[in-house]
């Protein structure tokens, strides 16, 4: 168990080697080092998992501290790692998916000049993500939190010649920073009330010191949620994710699908005890999660860029995870997180191989019946689409159904219905994408036509592995056989503390009710697919007619509800103008003015006095005599 720090150390070592010694290796070696670093981390993760399973379920929470990081007065933070089932799930998901993506990226970034720099940033990202996941106190998690934000800034703005890329990077970092502002304030509240930031201590002391629904805890949890919205792109602070598609596709696959965006969900799961103590903030979380799901899905309906569609679908799927956490079913949230990581990464990688084949072309209107020329990509893409829309054997079905089931069970009926609508839309836009891109007549330009080729094995292998995972990923949490809920059982010790507080009754659910709910979500998904089929295969001109009829609505959705423009107008522009005014009005005019003013006025007084030296001796004599007389008068009277 002592070697847990190796998990984080290997990617960091990869970062250092590639960073400093890359001059001596060629591309192959660099890719190998990067991928092997992540592979080793994955293996260590497995070893730790095996060791963890050896412990009895309740004792599965080991904390290893290394050194005292900051010691100031009574406030002492130990840097260390906390190993428990939740961490293990995250570690395995993160390192596993990133290992596959590293292999994929080895091939994908082949002819890119910044090859080494790409892998350096990627390795740094994975090590930061692992620190975030395994940290034992809020501050170390915050280090990982911002480190991950930094790497996403670097990777989004990877092709920094493109202004749009560097702008997107800057936007991502600043929006994350706004989220971190909330996280920071929450940390202060926790630090001042509990005098420590260590998870174990805080989560033991919280229930004793505060009863359910106390104001302070609600404030802290809400601010933590602000941090989460920043990082996991929920309603207010999601604007950076669609622009983040400027980065290379493996980056989007790794960071903006599988790992970074789920950090917010992980943090909420980690602080489940605090959230249990504040039902109000749980409610807020659930509402925001559900709204984001529906809102993002609506926007995804009309997007034309493949990666933008996937970006919005990520936002909406995370909305589901947040909804899961919001209704108190943290295990369901994490389960959906895991399955989502698989099929969303797969979708992005397929998008990558399509753009690879079409020389960077991502506009779906210029694609069509690629299924014959790219069989592997086509099959894996199909499996991922089925998974995400929630069709029975695939992983997406089980995880999304679990979330919707928990929402229904905890009587959030309105949210349940919204969730269903979201699921419908998801199914629709995913299959819209599938039909336009792979089925239907080909709109590919003629000279690109012959260029389409199946990607080499290094790109195809990850696709297949992820395909299989997105198929069998769901089976570890089968709905009917409670004793067979492997993942649920595995995670339960972590969340039982939270469940005790919020007195979640493990209601014995009749099998019929569960079956009914499952069939209902199946029907909804099927409906979505049929509509998409009718729209884009049966009579392709139907969407165009619909588009004209609801032109207003279409334009609104297409321009992303003009949210970016609103933010720009409401927040960015006024702040910039304010500083402009401030700098001119206050700085130059008032302060500088007053300083120079005193200088000039002294010069003025000097000028006046200068007049008195007329040069005539008698004038001076007169003045002297005047002074003498005045003195005499003064003394006499």
């Amino acid at each position: 168990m002592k070697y847990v720090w190796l998990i984080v150390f290997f990617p960091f070592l990869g970062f250092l080697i590639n960073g400093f010694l890359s001059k001596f290796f060629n591309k192959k070696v660099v890719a190998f080092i990067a991928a092997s670093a992540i592979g080793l981390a994955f293996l260590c993760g497995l070893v730790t998992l095996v060791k963890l399973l050896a412990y009895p379920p309740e004792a599965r929470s080991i904390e290893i501290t290394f050194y005292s990081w900051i010691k100031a007065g009574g406030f002492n933070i130990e840097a260390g790692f906390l190993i428990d089932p939740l961490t293990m799930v995250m570690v395995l998901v993160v390192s596993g998916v990133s290992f596959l993506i590293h292999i994929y990226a080895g091939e994908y970034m082949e002819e890119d000049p910044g090859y080494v720099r790409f892998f350096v940033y990627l390795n740094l990202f994975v090590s930061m993500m692992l620190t975030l996941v395994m940290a034992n106190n809020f501050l170390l998690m915050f280090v990982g939190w911002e480190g991950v934000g930094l790497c996403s800034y670097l990777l989004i703005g990877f092709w920094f010649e493109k202004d749009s890329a560097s702008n997107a990077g800057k936007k991502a970092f600043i929006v994350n920073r706004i989220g971190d502002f909330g996280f920071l304030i929450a940390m202060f509240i926790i630090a001042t009330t509990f005098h420590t930031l260590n998870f174990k201590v805080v989560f033991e002391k919280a229930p004793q010191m505060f009863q359910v629904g106390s104001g302070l805890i609600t404030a802290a949890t809400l601010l933590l949620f602000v941090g989460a919205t920043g990082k996991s792109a929920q309603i207010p602070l999601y604007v950076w994710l669609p622009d983040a598609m400027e980065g290379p596709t493996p980056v989007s696959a790794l960071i903006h699908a599988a790992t970074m965006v789920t950090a917010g969900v992980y943090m909420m799961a980690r602080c489940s005890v605090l959230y249990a103590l504040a039902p109000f903030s749980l409610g807020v979380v659930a509402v925001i999660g559900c709204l984001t799901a529906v809102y993002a899905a609506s926007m995804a309906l009309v997007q034309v860029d493949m990666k933008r569609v996937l970006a919005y679908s990520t936002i909406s799927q995370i909305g589901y995870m947040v909804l899961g956490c919001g209704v108190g079913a943290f295990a369901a949230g994490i389960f959906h997180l895991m399955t989502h990581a698989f099929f969303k990464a797969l979708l992005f990688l397929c998008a990558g191989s399509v753009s690879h084949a079409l020389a960077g072309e991502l506009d779906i209107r210029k694609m069509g019946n690629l299924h014959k020329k790219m069989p592997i990509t086509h099959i894996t893409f199909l499996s991922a689409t089925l998974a995400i829309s929630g069709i029975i054997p695939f992983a997406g079905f089980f995880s999304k159904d679990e979330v919707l089931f928990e929402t229904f069970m905890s009587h959030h009926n309105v949210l349940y219905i919204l969730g269903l609508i979201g699921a419908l839309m998801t199914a629709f836009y995913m299959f819209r994408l599938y039909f336009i891109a792979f089925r239907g007549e080909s709109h590919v330009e003629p000279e690109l036509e012959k260029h389409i080729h199946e990607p080499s094995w290094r790109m195809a292998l990850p696709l297949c592995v992820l395909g299989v995972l997105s198929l069998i990923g769901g089976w570890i949490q089968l709905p009917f056989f409670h004793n067979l809920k492997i993942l649920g059982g595995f995670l339960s010790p972590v969340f039982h503390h939270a469940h005790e507080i919020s007195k979640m009754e493990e209601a014995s659910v009749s099998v019929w009710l569960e079956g009914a709910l499952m069939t209902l979500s199946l029907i909804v998904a099927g409906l979505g697919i049929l509509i998409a089929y009718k729209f884009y295969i049966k009579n392709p001109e139907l969407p165009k007619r619909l588009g004209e009829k609801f032109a207003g609505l279409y334009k609104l959705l297409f321009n992303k509800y003009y949210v970016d423009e609103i933010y720009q107008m409401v927040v960015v522009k006024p702040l910039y103008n304010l500083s402009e005014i401030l700098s001119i009005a206050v700085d130059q005019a008032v302060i500088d003015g007053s300083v120079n003013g005193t200088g000039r006025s002294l010069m003025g007084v000097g000028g006046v006095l200068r007049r008195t030296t007329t040069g005539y001796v008698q004038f001076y004599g007169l003045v002297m005599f005047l002074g003498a007389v005045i003195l005499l008068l003064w003394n006499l009277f």
Partner: protein
Amino acid sequence: MIPLNYYLILSGILFTIGIIGVLYRRNTLIIFMSIELMLNSANLTFVAFSRFLGNLDGQIFVFFVMVVAAAEVVVGLAIIVNLYRHHKSISADRANLLKW
């Protein structure tokens, strides 16, 4: 016996006339003469007080005043000569080089 304050009034008047001469007249020579007049009025006060206080210090002091007056006049006139040589006139207005 003439009381002391007659002498003081006399010297005061002489001193004032001297001042008028210095401040009013443009001719440097006249200025010098009025300065001599002022010094004399001071001497008068010295002698008057030594007479009424009953010790000789006052009169001794008159000698020192005379010495100073002599030195002053001599140097002053030398300057006037130079002034005249330079400006061809001894009017006090000429020397205003110090004017700002």
